[in-house]
């Protein structure tokens, strides 16, 4: 059933769809993590969109329609399933630690300012690249492309609740990487990140000079365990 009154022409496609090419390419670079694959992904997606352009309903959100096609092509051709499985398992196991880590930060120490003030774009790109596919797609769509939860749900073909949880986890994983880099680079020190100036006992448990986040977490988890034991 043709939704255009007439069959859409190349000019219609060029007018409606092509203005979104840069947005598609930007997202494609961050989906595929390399520029060469991104170019292929954009080309495949736009050609597919062109072939099916008569199923696009004029007046609806063309950008969302194009992103839905590209997400689909990406998921079928480029995603690294095995790698993702590994990261997912890893992410699950360290999630509880991550929560504790942020709980410390969110106490409102100056860690926030130190971290945000010294972030470099390269680190943010690298941190985003470490987020597994499904979560990364959600973060890209929400944070970089301003799609609403409803639009993301349609693009990713999943319920809105799933969008929220993917976005939540994606952001947490991204933040964890940013903290890891900041600690590695000495922008924030691990004990400072713990945010416990008043809590010297906890500070000692953390060990002051830890730069590796995992050992930091282990130490901190050990300290937290003692706290729980007392309460």
């Amino acid at each position, binding site marked *: 059933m043709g939704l255009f009154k007439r069959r859409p022409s*190349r000019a219609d496609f060029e007018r409606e769809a092509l203005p979104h*090419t*840069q947005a598609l*390419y930007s997202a494609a670079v961050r989906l595929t993590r390399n520029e060469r694959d991104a170019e292929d992904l954009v080309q495949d997606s736009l050609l597919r969109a062109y072939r099916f352009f*008569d*199923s696009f309903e004029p007046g609806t959100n063309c950008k969302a329609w194009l992103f839905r096609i590209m997400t689909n092509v990406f998921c079928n051709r480029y995603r690294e399933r095995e790698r993702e499985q590994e990261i997912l398992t890893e992410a699950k196991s360290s999630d509880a630690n991550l929560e504790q880590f942020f709980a410390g930060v969110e106490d409102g120490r100056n860690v926030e300012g130190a971290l945000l003030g010294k*972030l470099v774009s390269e680190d943010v790109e690298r941190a985003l690249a470490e987020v597994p596919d499904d979560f990364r797609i959600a973060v890209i769509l929400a944070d970089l492309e301003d799609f609403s*939860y409803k639009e993301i749900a349609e693009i990713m073909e999943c319920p809105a609740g799933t969008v929220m949880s993917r976005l939540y986890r994606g*952001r947490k994983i*991204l933040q964890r990487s940013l903290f890891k880099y900041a600690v590695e680079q000495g922008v924030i020190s691990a004990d400072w990140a713990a945010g416990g100036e008043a809590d010297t006992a906890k500070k000692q448990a953390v060990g002051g000079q830890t730069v590796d986040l995992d050992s930091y977490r282990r130490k901190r988890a050990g300290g937290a365990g003692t706290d729980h034991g007392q309460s």
Partner: protein
Amino acid sequence: MARADRVGIADCGDVEAFTQAYIDGELSGRDRERYERHLSDCARCSAAQRFASRIKAAVRGHLPRRPLPASLEHRLRVAISAQPDAPPRWPWLTWSRMVPAMAAMGVMVAIVGTVHNRRSVVMEQARRTYQAEVPLDVTGKDCATVSSWFRGRVDFPVHAPHLPAQITCKGGRLVNVEDRLAAYLVYEDPRGHLLSVLVFDPDAAPIEAPRHRVVDGREVFYRGGPGVVTAAYRDQGLGYVMTADVDEDAMTGLLQASFRQPAALPVDNQLH
């Protein structure tokens, strides 16, 4: 009343889910009011909210749009101009031809109903296999020969559905549907567009989809995706999922054609 609300949201754990929706501009009405009231009372949640929105802004600020490489712009221009102007997909299947043909045949198509939130594993699988353009185990233009390749490999005789003459067989591949083996047949039209038919044991995976219609007295389930339509039906105890890059009505036309012709029997099965 305000007091009751405040009590309701006193647990900061409940607010966690709101923080994200709030910074994304997805919290409205009463939820938003309650959340904001809680923030004004709770320094910790207020700091968490501020942190979340600052880091969102920082991520966005550090990851601007990438400039479009000139090489890609050129590639796209060339690729799109190589396509026909009004993108005709399956040209012999256009409405101008199908509608009178279907009317002449006295086609009975009735939309039976819509059920939301149902997903058929086998339809999803057929669509993914189609889009992945998987390699074929056997190739050949003769559907009966391709069908007969599956003899002994799957537990049932594979009858390739009869499709309009423009669509020729390309080959087949052995696939798994849940824990059983199934036959995946690939067809091609003169322009290189692909159509696939998954023939499987319907006891292995039920057929369900949001929409179903009765086509020529047979119940057909449809599932649409961007540019791809999947239709599933049962015939003589077997399940079939047909997938092609056509729209739903064109798919109905294809099914129509296949239901009206006997299936191509495997060559060594002709006398059964």
